[in-house]
């Protein structure tokens, strides 16, 4: 088991295949919840520093489960998952917390604590490094400075003292992105981050995510339902169908026919819901 954290990835442009060592390596991943059927069946995936990868697929294709398996929220039945030097098939509890602390996550429903201020919500991204001092609810001045800088970066610093629930959907998602960045993540996962937003906000949020990937040199994995958004805001597209990778290629040389196959089930009306498995059995 490797527990040492490699040095932060250098800033770089979106890589061509194999141009940089992948931060995430998934090989032959199989996932099933309890005694249920396989949700992921032999998935291979590499995520390189600085690239934005769009994860496409119909509901139930395994997108959310793949995201969860990268942070130990889904059980790994077979295969290997390595994220930022951590081997998820053989991870102790303490290491799991350290891994999660190094992976920023953005959710469809933002998952902010509505009654807390925008600033406090962002600060919670630093909980793993806050230590016992924050038992009384205080964060250090350095953390506060960092949080305000991040709010500036996502363009919402003027709302710092407002309750998170008073913000619009797009603004809340920006707060959620700032919270994820507060972790100083080595990987950013965004599970359908624009599903609740209008088209204009969707473009703005995805543009921000792609910009973060390029500027901070971290891989960003975004699951999406809307193909044009994926084509416009990603460097690479991975298409899942029935828990298997059907397509994995750079956006600019994507095979349209292969991509059609990703959504072939929808044409047959076989869209059988999200792959929202239980977390029972997950770590």
């Amino acid at each position: 088991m490797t527990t040492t954290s490699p040095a932060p990835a250098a800033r770089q442009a979106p890589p061509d295949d194999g141009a940089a060592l992948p931060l995430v390596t998934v090989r032959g991943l199989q996932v099933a919840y309890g005694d249920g059927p396989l949700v992921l069946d032999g998935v291979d995936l590499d995520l390189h520093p600085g690239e934005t990868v769009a994860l496409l697929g119909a509901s139930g294709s395994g997108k959310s489960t793949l995201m969860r398996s990268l942070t130990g929220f889904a059980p790994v039945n077979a295969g290997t998952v390595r994220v930022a030097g951590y081997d998820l098939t053989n991870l102790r509890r303490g290491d799991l917390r350290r891994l999660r602390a190094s992976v920023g996550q953005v959710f469809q429903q933002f998952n902010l604590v509505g009654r807390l201020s925008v600033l406090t919500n962002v600060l919670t991204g630093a909980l793993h490094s806050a230590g016992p001092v924050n038992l009384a609810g205080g964060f250090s001045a350095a953390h506060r400075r960092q949080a305000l800088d991040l709010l500036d970066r996502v363009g919402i610093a003027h709302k710092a003292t407002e309750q998170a629930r008073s913000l619009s959907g797009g603004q809340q998602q920006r707060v959620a992105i700032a919270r994820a960045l507060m972790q100083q993540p080595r990987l950013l996962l965004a599970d359908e981050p624009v599903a609740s937003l209008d088209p204009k906000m969707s473009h703005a949020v995805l543009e921000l995510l792609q910009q973060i990937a390029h500027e901070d040199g971290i891989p960003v994995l975004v699951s999406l339902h809307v193909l044009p958004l994926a084509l416009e805001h990603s460097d690479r597209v991975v298409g899942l169908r029935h828990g298997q990778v059907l397509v994995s290629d750079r956006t600019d040389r994507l095979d349209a026919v292969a991509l059609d196959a990703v959504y072939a089930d929808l044409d047959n009306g076989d869209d059988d819901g999200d792959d929202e498995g239980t977390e029972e059995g997950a770590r």
Partner: protein
Amino acid sequence: MTLTTPQRRTPGRRAPGQPRLDPHERERLERAFSVPRARFLVGVPIALALLVWSSVGAEFNVAKLGEGAANMGEFLSRMFPPTWDELDVIVDLLIETLQMAIVGTVLGAGLSLVVAFGAASNIAPRWLYYPTRWVMNVIRSLPDLVFALMFVSAVGLGPFAGILAMTVGSVGSIGKVFAEAMEAVDRGPVTAMQAVGASRRQVVQYGVLPQAGPMLVSYTLLLFEGNVRGATILGMVGAGGIGLELTTAMKMYDYGHLSAIVICIIVLVTAIDQASAVIRRKIT
């Protein structure tokens, strides 16, 4: 198959391979006035039978209430006018009652919060959850008067025994409600806290408590209102407060004094209720 409705003759477009609704279930759902389900037809007579059985056992009798209405009116007429000669005694005892309720509520809510962490299924480990729930059930099944008698025998007559009774009694009732308020929080922020690598304590501090906070405060205010009323009862067994004075006035047939006590209690409880409502509005 006989098709009886136009809707069934031209069913909606359905993608091939899609699971279809059972035809009988569809037919039932299409009816404007649906036939009640079997469980409803069986459940209602059982519920009615249970109500009749309980009414007979509890000697519930509306006619008897009507016959006794005259006596009730006579009792109420004796209570007026109230006598305010001993208003200073009533006010002193009411203040003591209020003080008991304040201390009992703070201690009770604090203890209930601690116990609730162990009784919330989304926070506590299994080995702690079940014993805590069991202890709360035992406490809840005992009336506060029993606790009051127990503490009077332990620490003697006076408000201290009443406070202890209130505190312990709160754990059974409010502890359960607190735990359920924590269980009912939105799971999303909790997941987000876990996702940033927060410890269990941090998840509770930043993910659960801020969400459950308004409910916890609201239930604490409800506990306080209940404790003010409860303190009047506890006094009857010598556990302090205005209860003993109330009981004595009833036993001495001092209806004017009794009336003054009751009016003062009503004023106090109403004032507390109004203040609680204002606080609730502010925090939610």
